[in-house]
């Protein structure tokens, strides 16, 4: 039990709790405040336990991208640099998955149609 009398939540469960609220959560180093992702029980580098959580504004930039060609159709895979300073692997969902370009601005959206919610990204057309 933690201080509130609830069973302890794993980093993965905490992340999914945020996803279920439509939030892309990440953590910060307890000393430097540097953002990191994926969720961990210990901060990388400093070794601090229970690194604090934060919620992203959901805006980012395509760091790299590829279009996966399969018999069942094409889909995008991309690395997104969020404005808060962390990177995640995800997908830009667009009718033209081969037209996604490095440097494009994107906004997160939670998909809830799977076993667990997960973040994907939409292209921002106004250059926000």
């Amino acid at each position: 039990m933690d201080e509130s009398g609830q069973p302890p939540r794993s980093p993965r469960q905490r992340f999914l709790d945020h996803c279920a609220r439509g939030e892309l959560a990440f953590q910060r180093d307890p000393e430097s405040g540097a953002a990191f992702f994926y969720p961990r029980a210990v901060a990388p580098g400093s070794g601090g336990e229970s690194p604090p959580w934060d919620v992203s504004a959901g805006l980012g930039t395509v760091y790299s991208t590829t279009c996966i060609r399969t018999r069942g159709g094409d889909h995008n895979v991309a690395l997104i640099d969020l404005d808060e300073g962390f990177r995640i692997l995800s997908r830009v969902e667009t009718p033209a998955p081969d037209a996604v370009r490095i440097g494009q601005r994107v906004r997160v959206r939670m998909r809830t149609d799977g076993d667990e919610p997960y973040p994907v990204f939409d292209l921002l057309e106004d250059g926000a």
Partner: protein
Amino acid sequence: MSAALRGSVAVVGVGEAGIPVMPDGSTPVDAMALAAARAVADAGLTLRDVDGVFAAGLQLFMPTLSLSEYLGLTPRYSDSTQVGGGAFIAHLNHALGALAAGLCDVALIAYGSTQRSGGAGFVTHSEPNPYERPYRLPGPVAAYAMMAARHMHRFGTTPEQLAAVAVAARAWARLTPGAAERGPLGIADVLAARRVADPLGVRDCCLVTDGGGAVVLVRADRAHDRPRPPVYVLGVGEAVSHRSIAQMPELTVTAATRSGERAFTMAGLGPVDVDVLQLYDAFTINPILFLEDLGFCRKGEGGPFVADGRIAPGGALPVNTNGGGLSYAHPGMYGIFTIIETVRQLRGEAGERQVPNAEIGLAHAPGGFMSSQSTAILGTAAAV
């Protein structure tokens, strides 16, 4: 400290088996055991002499145990370090330490795979990553495609320059008996091939074959009286960077900068001294990144560097002289073959593809998604 180990150990035996395909129903241990027995025989030793066993695999959970049981080995030292396809060069580093410390006297490094005859495509016992699973990555190719895309974006590298790597590899394979792919291949063929993950097409990607490979090492004082010329370990270096592609700090810079510097420092050599290179070419972007990160050209210039036939037969810098993973063989983890081909070149037994007067060779392999990097610099007796 590591400089004191320079030249202290030599490769005295190499062996391969099962390229490009093993008989139906074969196991990965069949391939590994055949290669291991051939390497031990090549060294003029017997299986009873082997007291150090190093192995890794994608299909085998406990490869050193499987191989030792199969061949009746009872090693007093074993190491199944798994850092991806370059694990065998990492094993070379670990064998160097174990041999120097007297923890073993005859070290066998081995790999075996039935990826092709097993019919299951890219098999691995790697655990799923919950932060990647929803995005349907088809094996490692998505990660390497994003490295290529980033290199093209940052430095203007072109699909034609990537294709030049595959074309050079094929030209070498055409000189290599037993290579899996020996038909003619031009730039236009690579560009027109089926797309897999933009900007990579199927000819930018390594083959899927079966195969086993093995090398045998002993301390230098036991290397002189072997049947084949000893090939000495002049330098070796490892580096660990990340596990997931999302954690690679910059997709156009690999940790080969660190593994290479460690190997060159130990060897007391630099890129200008190297006569022949084996750079694990799981995808065409890989040799371009390694030529940059190992110091053979400046960062960003790898595309133009490979574009004019420089790394092909007859070029100034011979790279992947057996045809590499793109055209010779790729049984899942190719790193062991970078050592074997380096040894063959330095022994002068490479036939039509022999690089004249090769005295110093470099073998380099990544693991995972450029996650680990391992570099070895080998040399003839004259180079020690």
